[in-house]
């Protein structure tokens, strides 16, 4: 202990070199600080005791979650809010396996995470030792890369490579599994100043020939459309996208992951496409003659898996940093492998204006005349009204997180995001319980922002234990529980596709969320009509600490429009009109 204290972590030598030896844990901590990590999320346990001992200094801020899943979603929320890698620490065995959902969640949405797990000492690996789990094996299909560190001397290189791999190219989660003996072993510390990984050199600049072909295609197009996805947000290309769309005069639809990547107030914006998308976006996809996919992966919630009915008359251009995405789901006429920002920058200067005036006017008319609709009520609270109120009450100046399901779709529909990284949602994996801990991470990244966790009564109960973190660390996240007393999206599918045979979707016996929040020391309110909702939400917003509002909404409300699975985008079931 004396020796540890004798070498404060923050002290650095001029050259970054030191002849003094440190333990693996101390080296890890130094590496994290060197990487500019501001906060780590985690949960201690036997195999990470040495790591937590090195954290004892307080040199690095650590947030103690109440479940490893909460920790990793918080790290994920931090990463999505900042673009930096989120860092999570968990112990071996159950600690590590509790990260699995969070790792898969980050992998599906290309979120940079560095996940550090302890493991049993190397002489015990493979013996079914206490709290042993083969976490590198378990997570192989859901990580961008993983390391099992067998020698403390490798640790600085491994950490350096992990951050580089996690954040570069198409980002993703990287796992570092550190056996306890490696954490305890001693070595000299020197952080490498550069990375060279022979098998990993992501290509970021687009091929000029393909840029020329893109220009030619735009010149020839009369009905062009941009499908912008999460890649726009990841690469920070929002300005380039606006300039490109305006100059080429091309309307833009943003996928769920792309929301905020193009302003929801822009006249060229058509909303979200796909299963619960706008009439305008889906019709534009059906009719366009040129479709420019930008950082989007043409997944089945957009195409409905019915490629025979998807943009059939269009030449498809695909801009993506991941070459494997090109041609994976749709045949591509012009492939453009590269970083979205660099690609749009390269294409911007000489991009022609498409002959798209008639088309743009047409799609704008669709967008205007076929908005999302619901039948409002003064007696019961409608979830769509609540989301719209969240937008209006904040002027849209908020970071909003969600889980998956009806509340997620309503946020996507009724909260037009103006800025990238202001919408944080579990897109690919569709993880219940993601949004609330993610909001904690996002709030830590942006202490002064209004961070709203819109969740459901189902999802909230999957990670509500993190209320303890919000309370103790006074993280002023506002939780808006869209409480319809049931598992709404599953109920909706059972209603529409299973003849109203409601099987195990009733959540009416849930705890009182106000009392639950209060038991954690978090202020909470309940609202059952518009007047109450507006009043208590305003109180929650002005409350300096964390707050929970239990919005008791009409349980039978469905998300419309809807395209049934197996149908094409031409078969939209439209919602009810307001009377």
């Amino acid at each position: 202990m004396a020796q540890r204290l004798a070498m404060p972590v923050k002290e650095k030598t001029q050259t970054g070199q030191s002849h003094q030896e440190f333990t693996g844990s101390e080296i890890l901590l130094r590496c994290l600080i060197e990487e500019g990590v501001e906060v780590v999320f985690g949960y201690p346990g036997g195999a990470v005791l040495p790591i937590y001992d090195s954290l004892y200094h307080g040199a690095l801020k650590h947030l103690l979650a109440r479940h490893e899943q909460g920790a990793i979603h918080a790290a994920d929320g931090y990463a999505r809010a900042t673009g930096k890698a989120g860092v999570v620490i968990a112990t071996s065995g159950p600690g590590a396996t509790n990260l699995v959902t969070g790792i898969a969640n980050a992998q599906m949405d290309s979120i940079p995470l560095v996940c550090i797990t302890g493991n049993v000492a190397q002489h015990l690996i493979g013996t079914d030792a206490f709290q042993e789990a083969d976490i590198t094996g378990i997570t192989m299909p859901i990580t961008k890369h993983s390391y099992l560190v067998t020698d403390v001397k490798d640790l600085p290189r491994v950490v350096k490579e992990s951050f580089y791999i996690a954040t570069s190219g198409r980002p993703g989660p990287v796992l570092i599994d550190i056996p306890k003996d490696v954490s305890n072993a001693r070595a000299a510390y020197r952080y490498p100043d550069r990375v060279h990984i022979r098998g990993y050199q992501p290509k970021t600049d687009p091929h000029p020939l393909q840029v020329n072909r893109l220009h030619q295609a735009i010149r020839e197009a009369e009905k062009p459309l941009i499908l912008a996805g999460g890649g726009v947000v990841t690469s920070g290309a929002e300005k380039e996208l606006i300039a490109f769309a305006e100059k080429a005069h091309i309307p833009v639809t943003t996928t769920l992951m792309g929301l905020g990547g193009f302003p929801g107030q822009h006249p060229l914006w058509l909303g979200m496409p796909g299963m619960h998308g706008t009439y305008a976006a889906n019709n534009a996809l059906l009719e366009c003659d040129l479709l420019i996919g930008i950082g989007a992966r043409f997944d089945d919630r957009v195409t409905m898996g019915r490629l025979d009915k998807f943009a059939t008359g269009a030449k498809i251009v695909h801009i993506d940093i991941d070459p494997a995405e090109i041609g994976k789901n749709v045949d591509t006429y012009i492939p453009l492998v590269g970083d979205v920002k660099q690609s749009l920058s390269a294409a911007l200067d000489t991009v022609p204006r498409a002959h798209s005036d008639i088309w743009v006017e047409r799609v704008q008319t669709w967008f205007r005349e076929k908005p999302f609709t619901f039948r409002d009520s003064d007696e019961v609270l409608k979830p769509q009204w609540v989301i719209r109120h969240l937008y209006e009450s904040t002027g849209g100046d908020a970071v909003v997180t969600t889980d998956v399901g009806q509340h997620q779709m309503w946020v996507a529909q009724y909260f037009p995001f103006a800025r990238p990284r202001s919408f944080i949602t579990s897109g690919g994996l569709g993880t219940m319980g993601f949004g609330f801990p993610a909001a904690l991470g996002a709030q830590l990244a942006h202490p002064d922002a209004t961070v709203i966790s819109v969740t459901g009564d189902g999802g909230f109960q999957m990670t509500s234990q993190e209320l303890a973190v919000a309370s103790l660390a006074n993280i002023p996240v506002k939780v808006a529980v869209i409480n319809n007393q049931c598992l709404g999206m599953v109920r909706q599918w059972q209603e529409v596709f299973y003849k109203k045979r409601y099987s195990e979707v009733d959540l009416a016996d849930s705890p009182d969320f106000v009392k639950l929040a209060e038991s954690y020391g978090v202020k909470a309110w309940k609202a059952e009509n518009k007047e109450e909702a507006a009043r208590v939400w305003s109180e929650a917003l002005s409350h300096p600490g964390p707050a929970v509002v239990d919005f008791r909404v009409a349980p039978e409300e469905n998300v419309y429009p809807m395209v049934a699975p197996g149908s094409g985008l031409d078969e939209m079931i439209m919602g009810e009109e307001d009377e």
Partner: protein
Amino acid sequence: MRHILSVLVNDQPRVLARVANLLGRRNFNIESISVGESEEPGLSRMVIVTNGDERTMEQVQKQLHKLIDVIKIQDLNEHSAVERELLLIKVGAGPATRMEVSGIVEPFRASVVDVGPHSLMVQATGERSKLDALIELLRPYGIKEVARTGVTALPRGTAKTPVPAGS
């Protein structure tokens, strides 16, 4: 269509698991995988025999390239290549039939590598089809055990300098 991929990978623990895991998870077909040292220290060469149309093969290569431990991929269908597999087969053969079996083996340039009281072990190398044919000819004698290495392959010297698939 059958394709033979030659994949240069880092000689790291679990690299075979990473490759096999990826192929399985993406629902790609694997006929065989063989792996061993390559000409460069620290790198192994994996030879993967797989099936798929052009689009699938493109995906196989692109997805493999995403593995950090994969350095280079060649589709040997695009080159003239030498393809070999090693077969060990133990067939029933007593004193009466030993000569007969030896006679079958000879034109295949295979050799008898072990003789037991009631069996012979034959070793053969060649293309897959040749080994299949040999097995069929030996089947009437009673096949006791078979072990095959899976295909390994290299492009011929006359082939143009291979271009890495990713470039």
